[in-house]
């Protein structure tokens, strides 16, 4: 204040600056080291198991990792994980976009605040609660829907249903959709709110209706946000353990029908098999975990590619 600067500013390095830059650099490096350590650990243990595997790791429909010789394969788990996540995404993303648009552009301000708060609350429910709700409420109440699907679409084979308790990949997919709905909704809502007012007003000035405003400005602007939000949701769906283990009736078979029980997911299988696993059994489970790890990396990488490509069209910064 009023005193002239005595030393050139750029040469002053304060202690606080140093500490802070050191801390943030350290955090960044620590993250990389941790990721690398996880990858190395998974790979080493997985290599041990795969070297001893008498089955084909990718195509065997069996999980007998504790037997000697061990026989196991991830085909069923990969199929179940991907299918249940795809069902969840198909159901959740459109609904989540709808809720987010309602909150950001349609609802009266006060109502929007309340709904936004409730959606955030839903994201805080632990997955085991979803699992119990799924097993006790959702499963018995799916029978009607499944019968209906069977009657009209049973001929496709995908929706054939035999009337046994509805603990199938379809039920898991529906439950996962509910679980990932809040996270997709809250992220897309925040993105939609960022739409530049000038864009929207320009569209209005051209005589656009509200739907046209959303289609011309909000959705293109938010596209990369929708994709990132969906990937966050997909990450949760791929790795969900408890809810799946509580609801699904697993088996090492792939059913043509999504409505009949059976199948499994990586995370669910690890939770189920871990307790009675010997050392080879654990390594085999770790090998399956490695596949999930790689699958998640691939999905995230693909999402980043899409986002990078879309950026120029969306007008985001």
């Amino acid at each position, binding site marked *: 204040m009023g005193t002239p600067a005595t030393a050139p500013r750029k040469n002053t390095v304060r202690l606080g600056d140093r500490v802070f830059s050191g801390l943030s650099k350290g955090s960044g490096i620590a993250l990389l080291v941790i990721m690398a350590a996880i990858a190395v650990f998974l790979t080493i243990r997985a290599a041990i198991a795969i070297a001893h595997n008498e089955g084909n790791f990718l195509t065997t429909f069996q*999980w*007998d990792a*504790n*037997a*000697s010789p061990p026989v196991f394969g991830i085909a069923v788990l990969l199929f179940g994980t991907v299918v249940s996540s795809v069902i969840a995404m198909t159901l959740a993303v459109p609904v989540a976009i709808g809720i987010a648009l309602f909150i950001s552009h349609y609802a009266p301000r006060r109502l929007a605040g309340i709904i936004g708060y409730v959606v955030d609350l839903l994201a805080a429910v632990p997955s*085991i609660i979803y*699992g*119990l709700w799924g*097993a*006790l409420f959702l499963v*018995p109440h799916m029978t009607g829907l499944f019968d209906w699907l069977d009657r009209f679409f049973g001929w496709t084979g995908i929706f054939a249903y035999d*009337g*046994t*308790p509805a*603990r199938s990949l379809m039920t898991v997919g529906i439950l996962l959709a509910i679980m990932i709905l809040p996270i997709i909704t809250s992220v897309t809502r925040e993105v939609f709110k960022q739409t530049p007012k000038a864009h929207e007003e320009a569209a209005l000035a051209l005589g656009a209706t509200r739907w046209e405003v959303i289609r011309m400005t909000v959705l293109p602007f938010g596209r990369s946000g929708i994709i990132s939000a969906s990937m966050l949701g997909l990450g949760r769906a791929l790795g969900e353990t*408890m809810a799946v*283990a*509580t609801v699904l*009736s*697993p*088996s090492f078979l792939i059913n043509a029908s999504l409505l009949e*029980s059976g199948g499994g997911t990586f995370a669910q299988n690890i*939770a*189920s*098999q*871990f*307790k*009675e*696993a*010997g*050392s080879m*059994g654990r390594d085999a489970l770790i090998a399956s975990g490695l596949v999930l790890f790689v699958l998640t990396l691939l999905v995230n990488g693909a999402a980043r590619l899409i986002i990078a490509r879309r950026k120029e069209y969306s007008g985001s910064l």
Partner: protein
Amino acid sequence: MKLGAAAALVSSALLLTAACGSDDNSGLPGAVDFSADHIECAPSGSLLASGSSAQANAMEVWVNTYQANCDDSQINYKATGSGAGIQEFLQGRTAFAGSDSLLGDQELADSRAVCRDGGQAIHLPMAAGPIAIGYNLPGVDDLVLDAPTLALIFDSGITRWNDPAIAALNPGADLPDLPITAFHRSDGSGTTDNLTQYLHGSAPEQWPYEPNKNWTGKGGQAADGSSGLVGMVQQNAGAIAYFELSYAHQNGISTVAIDTGAPEPVAVSVENASSAIAAGEVVGTGGDLALELDYATREPGAYPIVLVTYEIICDKGNNPGTLDLTRAFLGYAAGEEGQGALAEIDYAPIPDGIIEQVRDRVAGMS
């Protein structure tokens, strides 16, 4: 019923969260008396053991009774599951392991690395759990099945309750025309291992699969843990599943009596399970007390579907620091008082001829 199913599911889910065993952790029935007249205590110390969750309730009673009667003794048994317990034992981290299945050759060889004085691991049968076949069939209170029928039901060979094979075993019962939903464990389990040993041992034609901790039969549905199976049986009419006797008792589930070829069908009970073990024989050699049950026994009152749960110790001890306490604790558990406490909590005591050998082995650890 609904509430019971909910409670069972909740407990199974919570156990899964804790990543610990869920074979038999449903808590002890009522108030259990932890007093004992006479326990030969070791000098104070602490002891770590882990393994089978099927013996968790028995361990809880033994540990509490021992600690209540012997000052400054700390015994910690973690019900991690047999597989994890054996791993910890073979790494030398625990004094003994609880297991529902026998060690493999490789594991036996590995045990020489942790056992002292050139000793190796041996199996001590310490308690037995009758495995009940529970079902939910409105209007049918008594159901008799034999091994071939049971094998076909669990292998989806018999799919309706009014099947002639079931009707032939139950003359006079009003069997409904209802589909059978057979439930099995989705997690690896000693209970599954023992049930399939019985099915393979007494009906090899109908159950050609080798006994396994993981389910190998065809069809049916799966659920996690015994409590998960209990929940499914309660929720679904026409369901049948298997779990430890204590689960059937605590949840009021009807159980199947087995037609073994004895004059009367044998109901599941602690006494009948003990009789079946007495009909078995020790097959272990060199001090090992591994048992082989006679699954085809026609002995009157012998219930053949039994899970024998072992303690795995080093025949000459593994760690001098915990040897005295291990000897005293297992000595009490195998003693008359330890075995006498089992029946109250739905475990079958080991018959006299075998438990006496167990006591000798425990006393011989040095």
